[in-house]
């Protein structure tokens, strides 16, 4: 239904895009280390195994039907016409990536970026479901996320869908803008994490009968901090690939994107450290790591359209929001989120999306098909409509799908499995076997 296929990139742009996309798995590796480090040692191997399975299922589901429903600008789509305006709501591509030329065309690059992005999104709920989410349920839930929820919203934002067309059709700025996936990856993953945390319930022993939370510290802060540094590299690639491939920026703008991404993460982490230092007398490792990831998530939407000072300001507020919301979810709302995934990805990402409307200087407006300028005011309203869609549509959708799955196939491990540890109960072996005290017959004298 769209007018024309996206024009092919020059060779250098194609190569640069491929390089950026190849960096994205570092973000996934970072998140996996963070999730493992913030969980218990007796579930560490299970979490790493779950991460690998989640990425695998995500890639497979995206290959089968995900990209067909996400599509790309210029590819076939289902469009409803209401009041003379087209509402492009889902792509109509063939399953199994059929008819897609794997020649470095923008559509093929979008398919590659989508495959690694959906893998990243699938890792986010593992942080909130740590220590109690069954491996089989993780795989099926990931397939639902990668095969339906993510592609649908990604089509609306990146595939020429109705959110992207809010500017052209309704004069709301340039339409909903998200350069690096703050909404499509981070918030969608974060809201799925919230759904999982609700459905699974808190870990055994997390809350007393009076409802007071008890601290269950992560088992390896070295993993957590190394994961943060690894994630930065992945985010450079993610934000730069999104800016160039999906927003038409010149490859040279990746310098600005990388600077903004780094500044946002840095200020968010420092703000989290400062808040915990002020409140508890010492900086907190896990909250500082959550602040760092929250800053990265917040940077994604506006990274290509703001000056470095604005990126630093976005990070400062992201650090505050993430730190305070972690406590709010745990203390006030009794949501047990061991990895802080809900705050870092959902809260941080929503703030980043809103920040586009507040700080972004998006390139000069163009004329739409009716000769009307598409830029100007209303960008904040377009961003607000996107946020309303995430909370009002994506959250009930992902919650409903996971609730249904839970009815068919219970997602929480049995009480015995939680007591024993996920490693032994579901995998039969622990992550750190050398820590086991062996009986006499296994020791050499």
């Amino acid at each position: 239904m769209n007018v024309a296929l996206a024009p092919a990139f020059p060779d250098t742009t194609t190569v640069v895009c491929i390089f950026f996309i190849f960096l994205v798995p570092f973000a996934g590796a970072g998140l996996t280390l963070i999730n493992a480090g913030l969980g218990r040692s007796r579930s560490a191997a299970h979490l790493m195994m779950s991460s690998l399975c989640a990425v695998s299922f995500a890639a497979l589901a995206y290959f089968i039907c995900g990209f067909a429903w996400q599509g790309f600008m210029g590819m076939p789509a289902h469009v409803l016409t209401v009041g003379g305006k087209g509402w492009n709501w889902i792509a109509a591509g063939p399953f199994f990536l059929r008819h897609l030329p794997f020649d470095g065309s923008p559509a093929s690059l979008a398919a590659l970026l989508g495959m690694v992005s959906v893998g990243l999104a699938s890792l986010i709920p593992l942080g909130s479901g740590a220590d109690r989410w069954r491996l089989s349920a993780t795989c099926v839930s990931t397939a639902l996320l990668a095969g339906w929820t993510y592609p649908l919203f990604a089509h609306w934002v990146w595939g020429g869908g109705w959110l992207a067309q809010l500017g052209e059709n309704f004069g709301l700025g340039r339409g909903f803008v998200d350069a690096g996936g703050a909404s499509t990856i981070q918030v969608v993953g974060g809201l799925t994490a919230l759904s999982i945390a609700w459905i699974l319930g808190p870990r055994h022993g997390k809350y007393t009968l009076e409802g007071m939370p008890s601290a269950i510290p992560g088992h390896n802060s070295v993993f957590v901090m190394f994961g943060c540094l690894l994630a930065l590299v992945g985010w450079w690639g993610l934000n730069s690939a999104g800016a160039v491939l999906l927003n038409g920026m010149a490859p040279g703008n990746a310098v600005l994107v990388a600077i903004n991404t780094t500044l946002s993460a840095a200020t968010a982490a420092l703000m989290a450290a400062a808040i915990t230092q002020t409140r508890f007398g010492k900086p907190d490792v896990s909250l500082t790591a959550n602040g760092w990831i929250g800053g990265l998530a917040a940077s994604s939407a506006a990274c290509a359209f703001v000056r470095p000072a604005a990126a630093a300001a976005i990070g400062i507020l992201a650090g505050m929001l993430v730190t305070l919301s972690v406590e709010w979810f745990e203390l006030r709302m009794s949501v047990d989120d061991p990895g802080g995934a809900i705050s870092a990805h959902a809260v941080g990402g929503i703030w980043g999306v809103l920040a586009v409307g507040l700080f972004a200087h998006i390139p000069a407006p163009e004329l739409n098909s009716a000769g009307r300028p598409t830029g100007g005011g209303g960008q904040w309203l377009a961003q607000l409509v996107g946020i309303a869609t995430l909370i009002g549509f994506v959250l009930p959708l992902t919650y409903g799908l996971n609730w249904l799955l839970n009815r068919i196939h219970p997602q929480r491990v049995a009480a015995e499995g939680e007591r024993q540890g996920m490693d032994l109960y579901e995998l039969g072996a622990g992550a750190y076997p050398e820590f086991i005290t062996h009986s006499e017959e296994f020791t050499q004298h």
Partner: protein
Amino acid sequence: MALLASVTLTPREALVHGLSAPSGMKLLGLLLLAAGWGIVVTAVALLAGAPRIAFVLAGVGVEILGLVLVIRAHPVQRGDHS
């Protein structure tokens, strides 16, 4: 009474007082989320200028109300895992 308590008390307070969320609380919250989104989309499609902004904000307000209901419904129901 239980509905009012679920909305006004924090989950921890409700747990202490032995109150559980009504079974329909969660569903009502989810429906409010979807209804708020419907208001937002309808406002974008049918209105312009200040009325559009007002109705979009109203829709977001309905979503926040739904979110509050869903959040307060859940932890009380999950108290059995303590």
